[in-house]
């Protein structure tokens, strides 16, 4: 397992460089240039010397390969460069300011979504076509179909303007610095309730439908029947034998949605005035702030690669066969049967799970992946 992890990590480095190169080229090919945008203030009168000076300062006068090489050599020293926007601050500092709140929001959202979606999925699978199943189906699909900017404004109107129960936007009260410690904590938490609520409502559908689908399939398996035949309590059959197996596809999706944790939801941040990654990136894209865009890209690409690896490892945790498979592989190597045993690799197993998940999309109970973030 350790060897496998190390090998995967080593392979990731050239992959990462490839990703950054493609992204660098694409970003620079997009029309518009950073210095032109800074001139768009009509009362300002940039002289062509100043524009030339800015281009030199940013290194934009160099050919693209040179620019990329400079960027890459700085990157290996973990220097992400300075933003092209007029504050000229280090990219890393800008990201560090924005990342914690986005990470916090996304983590809480993910945990709540999982905590709600898994029971909903299990219950509607075990009580298929019951009233509960029908109600939750309508509910989660309503959440899936509601545009979050619209829902956000509705809840703001209701809970903040109308009832006055919760703060409307931002992260802290304007007078928060005068509050006591605990009041500050509550103030901060209360600001998060509405945005988290809106995202959770929209995100429930994906996981709960996935869970339901996967569960439906598992409870029809022979080993579940034999567990029942053994006389085990239904609680144990479902909660222990069936659930663990049904969780496999969910783990796949979860792994794939990990990189999404650092990318803020632009619309939610926009409406609730939350200074997170989404806002930073949209502004950087509009301003053609290449260093900030690339900095974010490196972080997301790294996380995607790590998440892929992590979800492979997580299979081993959830599914003992894969762990055994790994051991057998080593033993099998000694016995001179490498070709056949290599098929038991976790990667193959993940493929199988994904394929199974795909096959399971049936009429009326279509499994949906993690709801894509609007951006």
């Amino acid at each position: 397992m350790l060897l496998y992890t190390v090998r995967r990590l080593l392979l990731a480095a050239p992959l990462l460089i490839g990703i950054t190169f493609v992204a660098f080229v694409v970003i620079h090919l997009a029309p518009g240039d950073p210095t032109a945008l800074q001139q768009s203030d009509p009362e300002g009168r940039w002289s062509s010397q100043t524009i030339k000076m800015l281009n030199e300062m940013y290194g934009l006068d160099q050919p693209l390969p040179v620019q990329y090489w400079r960027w890459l050599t700085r990157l290996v020293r973990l220097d992400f460069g300075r933003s092209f926007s007029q504050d000229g601050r280090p990219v890393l500092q800008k990201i560090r300011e924005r990342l914690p709140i986005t990470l916090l929001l996304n983590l809480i959202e993910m945990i709540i979504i999982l905590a709600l979606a898994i029971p909903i999925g299990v219950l509607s699978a075990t009580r298929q076509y019951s009233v509960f199943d029908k109600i939750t189906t309508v509910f989660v699909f309503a959440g899936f179909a509601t545009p979050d900017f619209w829902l956000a404004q509705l809840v703001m109107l209701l809970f903040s303007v109308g009832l006055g129960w919760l703060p409307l936007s931002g992260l802290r009260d304007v007078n928060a610095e005068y509050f006591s410690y605990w009041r500050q904590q509550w103030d901060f938490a209360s600001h998060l309730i509405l945005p988290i609520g809106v995202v959770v409502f929209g995100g429930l559908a994906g996981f709960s439908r996935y869970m339901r689908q996967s569960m439906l399939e598992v409870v029809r398996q022979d080993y579940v029947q034999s567990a029942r035949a053994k006389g085990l309590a239904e609680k144990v059959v479902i909660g222990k034998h069936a659930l663990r197996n049904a969780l496999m596809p969910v783990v796949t999706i979860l792994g794939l949605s990990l990189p999404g944790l650092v990318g803020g939801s632009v619309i939610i941040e926009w409406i609730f005035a939350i200074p997170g990654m989404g806002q930073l990136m949209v502004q950087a894209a509009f301003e053609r702030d290449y260093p900030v865009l690339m900095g974010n890209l490196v972080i997301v690409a790294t996380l995607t690669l790590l998440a892929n690896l992590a979800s492979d490892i997580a299979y081993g945790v959830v599914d003992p066969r894969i762990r055994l498979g790994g051991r057998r592989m080593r033993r099998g190597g000694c016995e001179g049967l490498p070709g056949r045993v290599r098929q038991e690799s976790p990667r193959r197993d993940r493929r199988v799970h994904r394929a199974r998940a795909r096959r399971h999309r049936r009429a009326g109970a279509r499994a949906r992946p993690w709801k894509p973030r609007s951006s």
Partner: protein
Amino acid sequence: MTRALALAALLLACSACTRDVDSATEANARGSTGHPVDGDTFIRPLIGNISGLIPNITSDANSHEVGGLLYNGLVTFDRDQRPIGDLAESWQQSGDCRQLTFKLRHGVQWHDGHPFTADDVAFTYRTMIDPKTPTAYKDDFEAIERLETPDPYTVRITYAQPHARSLMSWGMEILPRHLLEPWVRKGKLREAPQNWNQPVGTGPYKLSQMWPGEKLVLVANTDYFEGPPHLSRVVFRVIPSQATVFLELKAKGLDSAPLSGGLTALQYARQTDYPAFRKDYHKYRYPSNSYTYLGFNLKNPLFADRRVRQAIALAIDKKALIEGVVLGLAREATGPYKPGSWQYNASVTTYPFDQARARALLAEAGWKETNADGVLVRDGKPFAFELLTNQGNDERKKIAEIVQASLREVGIAVEIRVIEWASLLKEYIKKRHFDADILGWNIAPDPDQFPIWHSSRMGPDDLNTVSYANPEVDALLERGRQTCVQAERKRYYDRFQEILAEDQPYVFLYFRDALPVVSSRVRGVLPGSAGIDYNFHDWWVPRSEQRYTSE
């Protein structure tokens, strides 16, 4: 003559505010008679994050809105946009407009206690002309031949040539030499901590806290040379969504809409007209300093004939357009100057809606036949063009649609393209790859329009994007920027407006009204042609109505 005009401007501005908000003027009348007291917090929205707190090297409105409270220039502008002393006590301008001598205030201190002297003025000048300083405002300072400081409270400036904008340009924020000199020398002024969270100015407020992207907290500068401002704390909250700003106003989480632009026309006219809102806020309305135009690429043979451009102006019903796009909350533009300002010429040729005359003018220009689609044809080519505007501005998109429909009636086919701002600038406007566009300009108090209309400013980085060239206009613009005698300048700019109105290189559409709202507990708000926040440090809240009293 000038005074009469300025007075007329004032009357116009005031009739505008009284007509719309009786309660506001009433409150202001109360405000001016009551006795100002200190205290309370004022919460203002910013529509985007600031990019820096040294206004000399930033060019976004958000940074300037905050920076304006932290720094002073040598001069500032009063309600009617006339220059008055700020850090300068008085000034003298020589008859030939080449020499300007400022007497500085005594006893002014930087926020860190360091005394302010003529040295700082000289340093600011050196900073502005330093080739390593990334600033958009070099022009006026490069016109200076010599700057001397005979004593710590006198600055004598000599211009190489008479420079009309000389006095106005000293509204530029003065920077502290004792802190910034090493940064300027290294060419790294942007990286100075004073540009981020430790700004040091002479202004009425000091920065107390900064939460990047979230809020900035300013506190009153108790040592301010005009006495501390009455509102003891100002919080700028970064709220990018206009819808959220509006909801925050309803929930009383903000004390004003953005003071530069205010509400949208729809919010102002339709969504704020209920008793609770009227009780909590005063609405104001006055013409803003920005106009919207339909510009023609004069390099395009379609628009080379002046009669065609005039015909297009005639074919557009500006009144209906203003009604449709901003619910009538704008003033028709006849040229690049705001109606009511001293430089505005009210007697230029106008183009009242008249499609029959438009058709006749087009026929004169050779567009007589129409094809099967009803589009005018000349030499086998239909009269069709693309109209560009930028994404994210609903007003402009609506204008484009109205223009399209109006021109269709006289036989001109228009295709609208809405393009993201950065691409529009780089790929279309800068390269002159466009037929016509709908864009806007902000205008400064000074009438100098040299960079926009002079024929020498047609390069790719320049602002004469429609490639307008008229020798008479060139001469007028040159003369206009070389004298500081207002009556003389008025003559040049009057003629300049007449020519523009004849030539119609733009169809000047409208000056949008600024529609700010301010909490009704605040007194001393007196909007004028200078806007609303020019006297922010005089605003105050009566003790009984103060909302945030925690100190």
